[in-house]
């Protein structure tokens, strides 16, 4: 048979290339979405500036460091939470609703590749967030005491824990319900989850917050950037949440 324009030549691209394409596509879509950008960058930056400026006028109980050294690691944790949990849950909820996941299911991209692509997109966006927030922090006089290993482990396990919980929510609820619930959970954890402020700022309730993924992630970042430490206990808490989120997602998630 002669070769025409449409002569079949089926086949998937190499998996790495597919995952890269998916990750860059999803990262671009997140960056284009104003609402998600607000969540990813604007709110953490405002919290950081507001916290540091506010502490000049009001004393905040339960913090042992200079305000900027307390808040900067906290907003890094907040940024990871906003992307890995809220943005991912909302985006995935609407992907289900708009048949994107169904459509991709008919492409060579396997489901594992889709998940890897999502993780890649989260890491791209988080890298961007960390750079912006670190620059703002440094401009405000932040003196980090970087324990890179602890910080990197915190970002990875924090991303895993929040992403698995976000996917669980997106797979179990309708898109609109996911939108509402993911934002609500984000606000509740930001206010009461010991992510920006340390558990010691929450009085007796503080011990409970250490077992929340938000508090655990906040603690790993504070330990890493204030003392150069690896917060083993908090990392274990994040690992446990990852297991819970993954099992729940695997049991309930529906691609359509």
């Amino acid at each position: 048979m002669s070769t025409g324009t449409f002569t079949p030549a089926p086949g998937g691209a190499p998996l790495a290339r597919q995952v890269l394409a998916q990750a860059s596509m999803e990262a671009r879509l997140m960056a284009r979405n104003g609402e998600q950008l607000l969540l990813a960058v604007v709110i953490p930056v405002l919290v950081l500036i507001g916290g540091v400026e506010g502490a000049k006028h009001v004393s905040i109980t339960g913090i042992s460091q200079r305000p900027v050294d307390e808040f900067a690691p906290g907003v890094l944790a907040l940024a990871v939470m906003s992307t890995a949990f809220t943005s991912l849950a909302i985006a995935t909820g609407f992907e289900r609703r708009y048949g994107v996941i169904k459509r991709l299911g008919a492409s060579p991209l396997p489901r594992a590749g889709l998940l890897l692509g999502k993780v890649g997109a989260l890491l791209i966006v988080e890298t961007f967030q960390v750079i912006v927030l670190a620059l703002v922090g440094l401009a405000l006089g932040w003196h980090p005491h970087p324990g890179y290993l602890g910080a990197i482990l915190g970002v990875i396990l924090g991303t895993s824990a929040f992403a698995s919980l976000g996917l669980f929510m997106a797979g179990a609820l309708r898109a609109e319900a996911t939108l509402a619930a993911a934002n609500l959970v984000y606000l509740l954890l930001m206010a009461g989850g010991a992510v920006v402020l340390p558990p010691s700022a929450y009085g007796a309730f503080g011990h409970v917050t250490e077992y929340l993924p938000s508090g655990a992630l906040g603690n790993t970042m504070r330990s890493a950037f204030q003392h150069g430490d690896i917060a083993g206990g908090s990392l274990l808490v994040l690992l446990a949440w990852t297991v819970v989120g993954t099992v729940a997602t695997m049991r309930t998630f529906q691609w359509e």
Partner: protein
Amino acid sequence: MPNSPAVEVAGLVMRYGDKTAVDALDLRVERNTITAVLGPNGAGKTTTLETCEGYRRPHEGTVRVLGLDPINDRKALIPSIGVMLQGQGAWSGVKAMEMLKHIARLHANPLDTDMLADRLGLGDCGSTPYRRLSGGQQQRLGLAMAVVGRPEVVFVDEPTAGMDPQARRATWELLSELREDGVTVVLTTHYMDEAEKLADHIHIVDHGRMVASGTPIELTRGGTATIRLVVTKPFPEGAPASLQAALGPDIEVKPISDTSLLITGPADHTTLATVAAWCEQQGVLPESLNLGQRNLEDVFLELTGRGLAHTAGDTR
């Protein structure tokens, strides 16, 4: 499996709760053809297609595409098929060309996306976000996504629903060219003209059952058709009887006046040749010969007891 048919469905049963959507359906699609699955809404067309695409597991029966099981051999099969869903299937904020290029990147040997977009008239809306595309533009993008990976078989679900006539023609041309280049096309439609003009084979489905299969000519011939013959001067004595004898018992000859006759039966080549020869023999000259050929719409009406035009309106 190079020798297996493109699609082979045997005894497929699909149920939604108490409702049987597909009821012991058999379907065979040969390679290198355009096959239309025609039927009203709720006939089970989309469900059947979705089992071929591996989205649904058959409740009973077997489904093979290119000789492979769409669920168990999914990984091997998926790159070889192209799928056009009935609406949606893209992020709301993605630009049209960006989406097409993304799907292309997932494949090893994709088509040139600019050429494809040009063929389908997507050039003007390439940087328009998906949510702002018209229904017809979304359909064309869906078709482009289905073929960009150079599949062996494409499944297109209601490809021209909501398209203007020009876009519909472009789509038909593209589907015909796909077949010429060796691609098998399976489409669902409830447009009679689409099936009749485009398809090599038509399967008419109703209530989840196959009610008729064949080429467009096979389906429209063989049933009741009429020929109205008018001649220039009155027939000789006993003319209707001698024509009746020449045509045989399957065809009814009814005199209408002394210069006209109504012939009811298959209006095929044989019948026409016999009528012409008889005219010559009788020394009469036909003034007019009107063929009331039944079309697919009539066939559908006979088979299902209802027209498609009435059911087409409520599709999404």
